[in-house]
């Protein structure tokens, strides 16, 4: 590998990094009032990157920097997820942080966190993986506390930071153990080592290393029991940042787990599905049950996000091409649905604050009464996102869950109809019951929006929010109506995960 290779496939990362610095420098030069344009510049850069990623690297595999970064279908799918979430968040931020004098720093941080996530998606080396994780985490720690006059925002940021540091420490410890065992930080090298010497992975040290990595990734994924920070942080952080955290940064954990853990498990042919099944079941059940009793919509969305992580984690249970593809499609769908839903909460916040400047608990359920009349597009957005999160067709949520549940069912039942593994079937049943339970709390909000009488006048929904919500709505329904290309994309990525 030499450094003279063509960096063209890394153009999105390079573009966004340059843009982040450009935004900061530009911010120093222009007046506070003209800083509003920085949001548009950032959005344009992200949009260009999306177009670029869509057009390049969807097939084949190219590695860079002594094999520490790799561009392949898996990295591209996740980059697409991160970029879309980031685009939605940036567009909504144009309104949310309008006339804020620190906008330059805000957009630079968003861009850098996006770059961090993209590095994780491409990482082919534990060091690169860690650096990407930290770049994304450090940026989002600051973003979560960006409303520095708001104590809730600061508390959210601090908790996120403390638990995040703990997880980083665990993850780094796990990585160092792996380096100790295998003598390399290169992921394919590690996989090769373990496939030759599977006993090394099953030794106490190997298991400990794996647990630490799972804990580190699980923190990002908000898997139970590493989820504790998530509800507090999503609730306290600015809604647009919650959108980035819940929809984007969470997927960082998944892509890392796909690249390292699943690949390693496949290599050593270990049957640890039971552990992941328990994690997934606990996570989805916990998320759904606690979501039922929430009155704060942001908290409800946070728990629903935990539940969705549980569904996506079902991909680890059987590790077939279809299950991983299902996980990826659901991750993509979740990015759109959850990203859009948090932006829609931002509109409600805007609406409540324009009624009463000193309103408290702005995301309380009672503020959603008659939203269908007060803010029709936002309410429509919520309606679509909630149905999609509950897995009702035609939506991305439905397609993702369908693939996941189906992939586990065909593992449990042979094509001739013989039940081979009843506990796998039990997982599917629990997951479906969970979906049914989740309809309860989604439908409750829908009832508030459309059945109850409005508590105020109709508002004018700001164009930036509307654009962001509509992008998410179109994506959510689009994947549901025309899933073919997305499933193919996910299937290609799944091949990479399985090392095919």
């Amino acid at each position, binding site marked *: 590998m030499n450094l003279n290779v063509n960096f063209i496939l890394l153009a999105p990362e390079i573009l966004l990094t340059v843009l982040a610095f450009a935004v900061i420098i530009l911010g120093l030069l222009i007046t506070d009032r003209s800083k509003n344009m920085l949001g548009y510049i950032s959005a344009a850069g992200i949009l260009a990157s999306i177009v670029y990623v869509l057009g390049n690297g969807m097939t084949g595999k190219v590695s860079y920097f002594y094999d520490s970064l790799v561009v392949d279908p898996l990295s591209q799918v996740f980059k697409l997820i991160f970029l879309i979430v980031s685009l939605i968040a940036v567009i909504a931020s144009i309104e949310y942080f309008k006339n804020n004098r620190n906008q330059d720093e805000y957009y630079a941080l968003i861009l850098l966190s996006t770059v961090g996530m993209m590095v994780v998606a491409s990482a082919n080396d534990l060091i690169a993986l860690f650096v990407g994780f930290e770049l994304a985490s450090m940026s989002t720690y600051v973003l979560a506390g960006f409303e520095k006059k708001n104590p809730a925002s600061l508390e959210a940021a*601090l*908790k996120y930071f403390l*638990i995040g540091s703990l*997880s980083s420490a*665990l993850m780094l410890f796990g990585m160092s153990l792996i380096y100790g065992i295998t003598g390399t930080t290169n992921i394919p090298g590690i996989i090769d080592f373990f496939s030759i010497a599977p006993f090394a992975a099953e030794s*106490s040290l190997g298991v400990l290393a794996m647990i630490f990595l799972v*804990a580190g990734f699980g923190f990002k994924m908000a898997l139970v029991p590493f989820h504790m920070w998530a509800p*507090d942080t999503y609730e306290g952080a600015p809604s647009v940042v919650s959108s980035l955290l819940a929809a984007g940064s969470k997927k960082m954990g998944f892509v890392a787990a796909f690249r390292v853990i699943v690949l390693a498990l496949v290599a050593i042919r270990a049957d640890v599905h039971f552990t992941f099944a328990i994690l997934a079941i606990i996570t989805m059940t916990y998320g759904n049950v606690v979501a039922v009793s929430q009155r704060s919509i942001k908290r409800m969305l946070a728990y629903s996000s935990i539940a969705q992580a549980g569904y996506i984690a079902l991909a680890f249970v059987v590790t077939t091409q279809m299950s991983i593809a299902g996980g990826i499609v659901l991750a993509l769908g979740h990015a759109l649905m959850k990203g859009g839903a948090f932006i829609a909460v931002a509109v409600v916040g805007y609406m409540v604050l324009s009624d009463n400047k000193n309103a408290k608990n702005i995301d309380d359920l009672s503020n959603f009464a008659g939203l269908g009349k007060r803010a029709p597009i936002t309410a429509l957005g919520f309606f679509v996102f909630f149905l999609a999160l509950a897995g009702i067709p035609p939506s991305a949520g439905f397609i993702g869950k369908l693939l996941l549940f189906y992939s586990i069912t065909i593992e449990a039942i042979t094509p001739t109809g013989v039940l081979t593994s009843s506990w796998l079937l039990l997982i599917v049943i629990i997951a479906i019951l969970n979906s049914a339970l989740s309809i309860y709390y989604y439908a409750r909000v829908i009832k508030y929006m459309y059945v109850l009488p409005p508590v105020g006048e109709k508002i004018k929904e700001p164009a930036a929010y509307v654009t962001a919500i509509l992008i998410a709505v179109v994506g959510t329904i689009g994947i549901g109506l025309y899933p073919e290309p997305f499933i193919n994309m996910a299937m290609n990525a799944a091949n990479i995960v399985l090392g095919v």
Partner: protein
Amino acid sequence: MFSDFAALIVLLPVIAFVLTLFLGKKLPHGGAYLPIAAIAGSFIISAGIFLEIYPEGIVQQSIPWFSSGSSTMNMGILIDPLAIVMLLMVTFVSLLIHIYAVGYMSHDPAKSRYFAETSLFTAAMLSVILSDNILQFFISWEVVGVCSFLLIGFWYHKPSAAAAAKKAFLVTRIGDVLFLAGIVMLYVELARIIENPANAFEIGSGNFILQFKTMFEAIPLIDKTQLTYITLLFFGGAVGKSGQFPLHGWLPDAMEGPTTVSALIHAATMVTAGVYLVARTFPMFAATPDTISHGVPDALLVVAYIGGFTALFAATMGLVMNDIKRVLAYSTVSQLGYMMLALGTAGAVLGSKAVGISMFHLISHAFFKALLFLCAGSVIHAVGTNDIREMGGLFSKMKITAVTMFIAALSLAGIGIPFLNIGTAGFFSKDMIIEGAFEYGEVTGDMIPYAFAVIAALLTSIYIFRLWFMAFTGKPRSERHSHESPSVMTIPLMILAVLALFFGFSHTGFYGYVESNFELMGVDLGVHEGEPFHPSVIVILLPVIVGVVGFLIAYLIYNKRILDMSKIISSQNPLYKLLYNRYYEPKIGADLIGVKLTHDVAAQTGEFIDRKIIDGLVIDTIISSTIFKIGEVIRKMQTGVVQNYASITILGVALLLVLLRLEFGGI
């Protein structure tokens, strides 16, 4: 050139629907110009395509939609003669009715909703026509049904309208379920055929499994009994949509919607979708085995009898209705019966000619029936009532309406001059149907469908002229000052009247063109094409004779009043009672099946189980409260203290250690 834009035929009204829905309230006339412009665009494109492909072109465009297993579904467009005549008719009639509605709905506060819904309806209907596969056909068919439901219940604050909408939705649903079951059976059968290598059946590249083309190609390989089931299930869908016996009850009730809706949806377009479905899949119907009557495919026999019976049965009820729109509704049911009858009888003996005969009646019916409804709307607009007993003497006040309606009535009654080939549209189209039924009788010796058709023709003539004489002649029976409608309403009437008068002259060209449909698609019908038949003079004259006789009867009774009807029309006369109560169909349908059986027995039992046992016991006391309690407990675990969070994280690591060790075994 135009065929490149075929997709726009559907997309333009869809766009108009979205725009009208969101912006209609802010635009003049409720945004009516958007759908009008869009449908005019669809009409122009359709006309352009027609000129391009006539006489033997076909437009086919298809893209894959999604895959299921090894088979791929598609979305696509197929414009063959059958589709193009329907396209032209639907876009044209829809355009005229939209223009008319600008005047008719001018005082309605919810008119933007009206125009949005009719625009969506038009889009869905055009999509039904254009579909090149049965799945897309069904989906569009369902959207059409939803629009019909919305528009029947347009004045939803009226309980009768809401009830009628519900009834229409539920009754047509029975047909739709049958139709869907037919599609599923067909799919399973086709998949079986493709999987069996012995059949050597392959779907060509660019073709898809549920495309009509593939379906037709596979006909010889489909199990014959299965084919009968599939076609009869399809016909079940058609019976629901086209208001055939025994699912006809919803159509007269559907008159609760605005009259323009009745004209557009429940006369000219949607209700003909059922006939179109049978015509579209005609090769399948024609290929069913003849187990009941020799030489007559079973499916066509059923179609012929259901159609013929409906034609007569509905006409009898049309005789006694007093609501102007209900008379027309029963007339529609009856005429749709004629179209089915044509497909069944002529289909059995004349092969694909039947499609031409049936479609010709469909198109001419669309013109004169839309005209009748619009005239009725004009009358209702003027006198403010639907009851023909309260009308009368309107001729001098609304000349244009009276004359155009008379033309429509002549056309419906099939009046014309035989041998000279001069006559109204209905004259040509209905004559062919009755002659086809006669030919069927000659060949098979079964004259019953022919008898249905002739008697129904007599009744048709009576009820329509009864309606006309009662409304326009005699003394005014109400005090209301009535006046002619505005020109935005009368001009569409005149255009339709011209078509109702002169459309018939296109019959030779029309038959030849539509007949060639399946040939152009490369389908071998496998039906023996009958000899060119030369019916006797009386057979040719009879339809006109009964039409004229009907006119005279109506004239003598309702204009000259030589017969005192009050003796016949009394609640003592059991026949009158039977007809007036619509054969007690609403009683049987709504009260017995709907209320007693479905509601009292099934629904109440279900509700008891749900409310008392599942909801009361399980949901309330066990599941619901437990989940809430667990949720509350866990909520308290979320202390907000960050040290606890860290401890839980470490506990999680320990838990993982235990789990993984259990799985790997041993430490």
